[in-house]
């Protein structure tokens, strides 16, 4: 028979707590919430019950990261404690709603609250950086979604340095781990984008991505965040807070990089594309040259026509000044016989001067019989 042990009340409570701590290093319990209340804006109290039993629960309000209401089925992570007043309670570290209906209700309540705060404003969204070289990934390294992401990323592009932080992506501790990973990447500031990845799962599995603290941490990240969580139809508050939402981890890989096969096709098309362009330019320049030659021919012809017209005009003038033309009109030319070629002699004849008269058909030698001076104003 074991010896009896004598305690003071305080010692007994202390021993009980040590025993509870030793026996239950971590307790996860599922149950329905009842009598939920928040005291002094700091402390949360509720009962967790099932059909036969009920246990008191307590938690700092700061730990409450999802909206909880009476009647919700939840999962909690807690430590058991006997208070100084002999009351047994669970100190809750994490709480998550369970079941699609409860998760949806909690999702909508928190979505409204955070939307009203402007946490999801599109003006806060940043585009993913171009020409990535360093990518931070937060995921479970054992998850199929993570493997898919790496595989597709590797198929699409190379030369990336991918730094991964392994975290749980479901369950009560997942949110805290993902928040720590976000903080680590932001503190180190070595990556250009952070991808949070998780493959498909049930609403319960994905509930962690509606954790208020996690959602706020994503929105506050200095490094742009890309989420690839669940399937196409799944939408979490983490997705709404992220800068870019990919529908799946595979889609996240597609959002991050170009496809090297598409780029290679473009590269292979370059010789043909450029040679076609050069031939187009050659054809264009030939056309321009032919046009210039044609223009030059027209210009030469025009100049020639102008010169010919001018020549004909000058010939006409010359013809009108031809003495033969004057003789044909019935005039005669009188010149001095004594001083042939002297133009002055023609204008000052004296009586008796020998002269020569030229008509159209004759040359007449004659003598001046009489000279009378004419007034110049007669013409």
């Amino acid at each position, binding site marked *: 028979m074991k010896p009896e042990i004598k305690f003071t009340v305080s010692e007994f409570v202390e021993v009980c707590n040590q025993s509870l701590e030793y026996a239950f290093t971590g307790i996860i319990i599922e149950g329905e919430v009842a009598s939920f209340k928040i005291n002094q804006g700091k402390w949360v109290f509720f009962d967790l019950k099932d059909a036969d039993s009920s246990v008191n629960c307590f938690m700092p309000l700061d730990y409450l990261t999802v909206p909880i209401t009476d009647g919700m089925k939840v999962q909690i992570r807690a430590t058991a404690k006997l208070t100084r007043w002999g009351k047994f309670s669970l100190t809750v570290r994490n709480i998550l709603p369970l079941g699609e209906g409860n998760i949806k209700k909690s999702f909508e309540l928190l979505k409204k609250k955070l939307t009203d705060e402007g946490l999801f404003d599109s003006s806060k969204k940043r585009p993913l950086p*171009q*020409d990535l*070289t360093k990518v931070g990934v937060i995921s*479970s*390294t054992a998850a199929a979604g993570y493997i898919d992401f*790496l595989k597709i*990323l*590797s198929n699409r*592009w*190379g*030369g*990336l*340095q*991918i*730094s*991964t*932080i*392994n*975290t*749980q992506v479901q369950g009560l501790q997942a949110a805290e*781990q993902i928040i*720590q*990973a976000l903080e*680590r990447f932001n503190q180190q500031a070595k990556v250009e984008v952070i991808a949070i990845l998780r493959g498909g799962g049930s609403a319960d599995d994905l509930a962690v991505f509606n954790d208020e603290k996690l959602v706020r941490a994503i929105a506050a990240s200095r490094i742009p965040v890309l989420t690839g969580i669940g399937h196409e139809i799944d939408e979490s508050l983490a997705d709404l807070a992220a800068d870019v939402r990919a529908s799946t981890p595979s889609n996240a890989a597609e959002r991050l990089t170009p496809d*090297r096969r598409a*780029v*290679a096709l473009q*590269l*292979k098309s*370059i*010789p043909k*594309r*450029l*040679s076609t*362009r*050069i031939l187009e*330019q*050659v054809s264009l*320049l030939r056309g321009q040259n032919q046009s210039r030659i044609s223009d030059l021919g027209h210009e030469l012809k025009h100049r020639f026509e102008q010169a010919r017209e001018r020549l004909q005009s000058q010939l006409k003038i010359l013809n009108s000044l031809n003495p033969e033309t004057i003789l044909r009109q019935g005039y005669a030319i009188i010149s001095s016989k004594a001083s042939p070629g002297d133009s002055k002699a023609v204008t000052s004849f004296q009586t008796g001067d020998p002269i020569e008269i030229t008509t159209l058909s004759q040359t007449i030698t004659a003598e001046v019989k009489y000279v009378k001076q004419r007034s110049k104003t007669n013409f």
Partner: protein
Amino acid sequence: MSNNAQKPISKRLAELDVAIEWFYGEDFSLDQALDKYQAAVKLAQDIDQDLAKMQNQVEVIADFTKA
């Protein structure tokens, strides 16, 4: 490996874009076209080869599941 090959692919793709734009710009001249063509095609072939060889480096830098 040439200096050009050591540049990131993204930078060389940007250089290739500039090289191709020349053929569609006002600076285009037939006198330079052949040299420019050969340089652009060489750059495209180099990028294509390196593109096929490029691999990603993956490192798990922390494991918070064990905390």
